[in-house]
């Protein structure tokens, strides 16, 4: 999870605020359609999976997102 959050901070180019697992990441000012692409690219690189947008839409927080990824890896 920590590793994922570090990568998440890197690809979203977050520099001036903390990132916590309970954060609703779409509320970040860095979040836009390009950030979405970067997040997808990160997940594809790290876990070799792609996730449909409809499933992304069902998660709110970084923690939930990480759980979704983990559920795909089982």
């Amino acid at each position, binding site marked *: 999870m920590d590793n994922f959050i570090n990568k998440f901070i890197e690809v979203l180019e977050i520099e001036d605020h903390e990132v916590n697992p309970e954060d609703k990441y779409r509320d970040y000012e860095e979040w836009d*359609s*390009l950030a*979405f*692409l*970067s997040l*997808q*690219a990160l997940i*594809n*690189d790290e876990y070799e999976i*792609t*996730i*449909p*947008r409809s499933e*992304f839409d069902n998660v709110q927080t970084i923690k939930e997102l990480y759980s979704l990824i983990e559920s795909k890896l089982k």
Partner: protein
Amino acid sequence: MIGSKISKTHYYLPGKTISNEELEQLFPEWDSAKIEDKVGIRKRHIAAKNESALDMGIKVSQRIITDEDKSSINFVIFCTQSPEYFLPSGACILQHQLGLRNDIGALDINLGCSGYVYGLSLADGLIKAGHASKVLLVTSETYSKHIHPQDKSNLTIFGDAATATIIEKSEKEMIHKFVLGTDGSGFNKLIVKKGAFNVNNEDKIYESSEFSDECLYMNGPDIFSFTMDTVPKLVTDCLDKNKFTIDDIDKFIFHQANKYILNYLRKKIKIPEEKFYINLYDTGNTVSSTLPIALKQCLDDGIIKKESKVMLVGFGVGLSWAATIVEI
């Protein structure tokens, strides 16, 4: 051995343009510098109200066909998703407007970002089968006419353009083998839902659009997932089928979707940066025209020289994908 070759290609861009700064004025939350840096687009050309895809197709064809071509072109393929009419085919009108012979074939193909490679595969097949010896392949798209005025994402990405390519019979096989693919389960990921004859308007088969159902809808994230899942294998399969490796290819030209996606795919496939062409700064994503525009730019700039091997890779709406290797 009968083969085919691309003997010339040209493109046409409509006069009106929209810059990133103009988009930023319309949508203050948009960052023009970020669009240029990440998406790789500075401006996009937009067809005039009274200029159709067919009009642009006629203009670009007139730029390349000579009197000799007029008497020797014996097939016309017109690739567009912005047809002039439900019927007849635009290709038939092109035949007449360009003053081509009557004893020739003409047909339209309705494909987007994979359309140019599919057009080449048809031209190559027609030539090898002896049905034609010189094919005019025209791509032309006016997605701007499909996009909702408030749809800032699609307004940013897409531009209008037309291209014309002559493919002719050749002693040497200059257009190599093709890899083609289709996955219609993703038909609703990039779609204009209304305006044609679909009667099965059950909401469940469509994804909800923020804008009008008469306008272009794109599920960008799912299209990106599709490219991540499909394009690396497409490139490998095309190399394998033609018994080449990445080292044998002088230039890789992918459908110019956007700079971020192209760079991501390049790294994933491990194509050296110097072999990979990215240039959509002044055109945007022109759908079926990005590949021939890039090809022409590479030829004009000396990036591709005689006997260069070039891989062309198209992917998008359908979902549909195609790749081949051409020698110039």
